[in-house]
């Protein structure tokens, strides 16, 4: 067996074991990020946010991921009237 085929086999083996864990970790991170997004957007989603004064300064950093977020949580269109990302 040539060394390149051996390397490909090792990669496949690695993928076989690591793949599922990677998916789990990616999902766990996404859950944390979704939670954060909800906190920051609370006021716009109709949840009164007593800390809106402070959350609003976090908004610029999450705004760009907004489209990815609302499509992933099952809303095809932007749930916010004034954010027309799609």
């Amino acid at each position, binding site marked *: 067996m040539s060394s390149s085929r051996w390397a490909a086999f090792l990669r496949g083996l690695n993928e076989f074991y690591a793949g599922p864990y990677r998916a789990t*970790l990616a999902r766990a991170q996404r859950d944390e990020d979704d939670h954060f997004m909800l906190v920051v957007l609370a*006021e716009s989603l109709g949840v009164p946010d007593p*800390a809106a*004064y402070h959350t609003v300064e976090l*908004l*610029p950093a999450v*705004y760009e991921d907004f489209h990815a977020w609302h499509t992933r949580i099952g809303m095809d269109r932007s749930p916010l009237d004034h954010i027309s990302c799609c």
Partner: protein
Amino acid sequence: MLLTDIARRRVIFVGGKGGVGKTSLTSALALARARQGARVLVVSTDPAHNLGHLWQRAVGNSATLLWAAGDGPGRVDGIEIDPAATVDRHLAAVSETMTRMLPDRLHRAARAHLEQARDAPGTHESAVLERVAETLELGLDRYDLVLFDTAPSGHTLHLLAMPERMTGWTEQLLANRDRSERFRSAYGALGGTKDTSDRDAELRRMLLRRRARFSLIRDLLDDGDRTGFVLVFVAEPVPIAESIEVAASLRDLGIVLIGAVANRLSPADLMPLRRARENTLIADLSLGAPLTRIPLVDEVVGLPALEAIAAELTPAP
């Protein structure tokens, strides 16, 4: 002796029910300390500001001179906190960041979003807290004493509880960022790629800055050697009942009550019956702090009136 207890500290909050003479007492305390050579900053957090009227000066959102000793360092400066101006400034700064970070097509939406935050329920008090933090930093840096003339009790207790609550809030969000970061690096170690590190660093920087500020105020409030509360009331049943509740709330918050002031006591010669009733009400009152009695001073406007009250606070030489 109230003035001695105040002289030992850097920050004093003066509170009590509306209309009991908090502003005049705060101002008289400031004047009495300034006469002893202290540099004093008086900050009004009450949206219905009276500081300017009392000193007969235009006082605004930045420090204005109210009184200065002819010789020596003693002086009194005043600030009337303007939450609306603070909200404007804050939202303008965020808007500037957004314009820089976001593509053009999102600008209009971002601005609409900011307008919602302006009207959100906690925005006004967050702005007051922000200004309290700023004036505290200014006060600790350039003055010997900062006196806060606060809004009526309920608002003030809420304001004093906020630093603790907001420290917890930023800590929760930072923990969320930590977990997200750990999952991301574990994901990366298993061969995944997703680079959001710039954004995360920015979020973390903002949260850390907020937490530092909130915990600074919280630590200051918790420190009875530097910070104290003075409770003002008039000798009538309702203000006294409220004062008992405020004293209990302050104990729960861990804030030291250093003095209670029975203000505007009726003159014994002109109104003997009324004065007797007031004396009975405060005789067996126990708020857990020494009680100071201040007689009624006519027409509390201008320096002479403040000097009359200050004289009541200063021990005879």
